[in-house]
């Protein structure tokens, strides 16, 4: 049976070139950058090389603006809680959106229990935030605006540059969760007026358990993890050198190959979307048709439920998702789809295809070959399917 993995938002392979450099620093060059001897010196030097590579990918002015963390979630924690606690003398109001990743949602809920106020900007039916609405929420107590670069589930990318301008004019810290976007679309933190930017390594074919937070020079942030003072005191703990080197290499490759890969993926994505809409009745695209990640297709099939679709496809070798992997265990439909105005049953019937660089046109063809049958079978089982459709 053919295997077609299209759940890259949930987990990605490490690029073999990345794994190769990690090998050296795992088995042979295992020094601690804080050590004074030659092993330490060489660890320190690859640490700063990797920092430069990540800085370059996201358009940071200085490599020291990049702080390595253990992943996207930790970066978001450091950004949101770090700014909130450190600037609470200035205000207690945070503006974010209705479609953020569960980590941002839960961090904000945690802060609300401690007296912070959180405004959540709604999105339109394609998942877009309206910068004007966001601007209207700003008060003299607002200390942070947090908007994701792209949503990994519906694929919609936001008008970050415009929002950055608004934040900049009001002198409010602007955080961008770019976990789903970094390495896939060009980002320039400096030009887009971003003060803090979260990224994750595995989302660009780097090792898991690694992330980074860009913190623009001058931004006041309090650490979330106290300890030995590594990463300029903002993230303590012995540096994960193999992970950092891997993330650096992944950033370098992403920067070099982004354009070509973006074209490749966009083509696959659009073939898949068009093919599904053409061949399967009562199917719909969720999210914005063009302002979307090159690798994301979020499709909705009326009358049937997402998890059974996932299982059905898995049985024929196709791996996809029904939304954020993190939230899938709660059985709740996606808060993102609901925020876009979808009914609960519509949200339940959505499938997320996230493609990767190993996917080919043949993969898309295969999906288009097997998907109609899986949908048809489940529609036959469903009591909601209109009789006419089954004939």
């Amino acid at each position: 049976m053919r295997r077609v993995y299209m759940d890259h938002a949930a987990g990605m392979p490490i690029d073999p070139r990345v794994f190769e450099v990690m090998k050296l620093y795992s088995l042979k060059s295992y020094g601690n950058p804080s050590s004074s001897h030659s092993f330490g010196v060489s660890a320190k030097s690859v640490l700063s090389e990797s920092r430069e590579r990540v800085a370059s990918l996201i358009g940071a002015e200085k490599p020291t603006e990049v702080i390595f963390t253990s992943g996207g979630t930790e970066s978001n924690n450091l950004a949101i809680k770090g700014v909130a606690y450190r600037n609470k003398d200035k205000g207690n109001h945070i503006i974010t959106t209705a479609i953020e990743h569960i980590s941002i949602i839960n961090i904000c809920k945690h802060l609300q229990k401690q007296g912070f106020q959180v405004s959540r900007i709604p999105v339109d039916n394609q998942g877009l935030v309206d910068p004007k609405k966001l601007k209207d929420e700003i008060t003299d107590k607002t200390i942070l605006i947090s908007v994701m670069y792209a949503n990994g589930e519906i694929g919609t990318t936001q008008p970050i540059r415009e929002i950055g301008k608004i934040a900049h004019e009001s002198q409010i810290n602007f955080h961008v969760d770019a976990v789903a976007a970094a390495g896939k679309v060009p980002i320039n933190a400096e030009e887009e007026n971003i003060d803090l930017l979260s990224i994750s390594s595995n989302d660009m074919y780097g090792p898991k358990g690694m992330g980074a937070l860009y913190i623009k020079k001058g931004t006041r942030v309090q650490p979330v993890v106290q300890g030995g003072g590594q990463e300029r005191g903002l993230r303590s703990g012995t540096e994960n050198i193999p992970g950092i080197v891997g993330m650096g290499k992944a950033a370098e490759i992403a920067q070099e190959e982004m354009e070509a890969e973006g074209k490749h993926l966009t083509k696959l994505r659009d073939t898949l979307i068009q093919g599904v809409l053409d061949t399967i009745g009562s199917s719909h695209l969720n999210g914005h048709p063009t302002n979307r990640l090159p690798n994301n297709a979020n499709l909705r099939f009326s009358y049937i439920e997402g998890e059974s679709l996932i299982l059905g496809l898995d049985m024929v070798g196709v791996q996809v998702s029904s939304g954020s992997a993190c939230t899938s265990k709660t059985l709740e439909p996606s808060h993102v789809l609901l925020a876009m105005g979808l009914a609960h049953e519509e949200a339940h019937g959505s499938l997320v295809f996230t493609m990767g660089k190993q996917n080919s046109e043949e993969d898309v063809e295969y999906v288009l070959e097997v998907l109609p049958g899986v949908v048809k079978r489940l529609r036959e089982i469903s009591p909601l399917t209109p009789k006419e459709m089954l004939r």
Partner: protein
Amino acid sequence: MYTERVMDHFMNPRNMGEIPDADGVGTVGNPVCGDLMTVYIKVKDNRLKDVKFKTFGCGAAIATSSMITELAKGKTLEEGLKITRVDVADNLGGLPPVKMHCSNLAADALHSAIEDFKKKELKK
């Protein structure tokens, strides 16, 4: 996540479909919650002569629906009412905890179909 038996019933559901002239029909769940099951029964001599289902929902919802039809078929109404959610899960080799509460509605649907039959009988 799912046992082989669950996957088997999901892939090859038994007794799937409607019974147009059913003697009792039971529907539980709600598409809003992601699970909706309808069980149709045909009764003869106090026995469940035929049991069929239609289900909108996750893999567990489909598999438990299929399983309940197998368990119920040929049983007396009283025996049918005694089939529990736990029986269904056990016969499938177990269900993930999160699914035990949310998607294991098939026994309820069967009970509801039997009650429906009884109500109709009373009215006759």
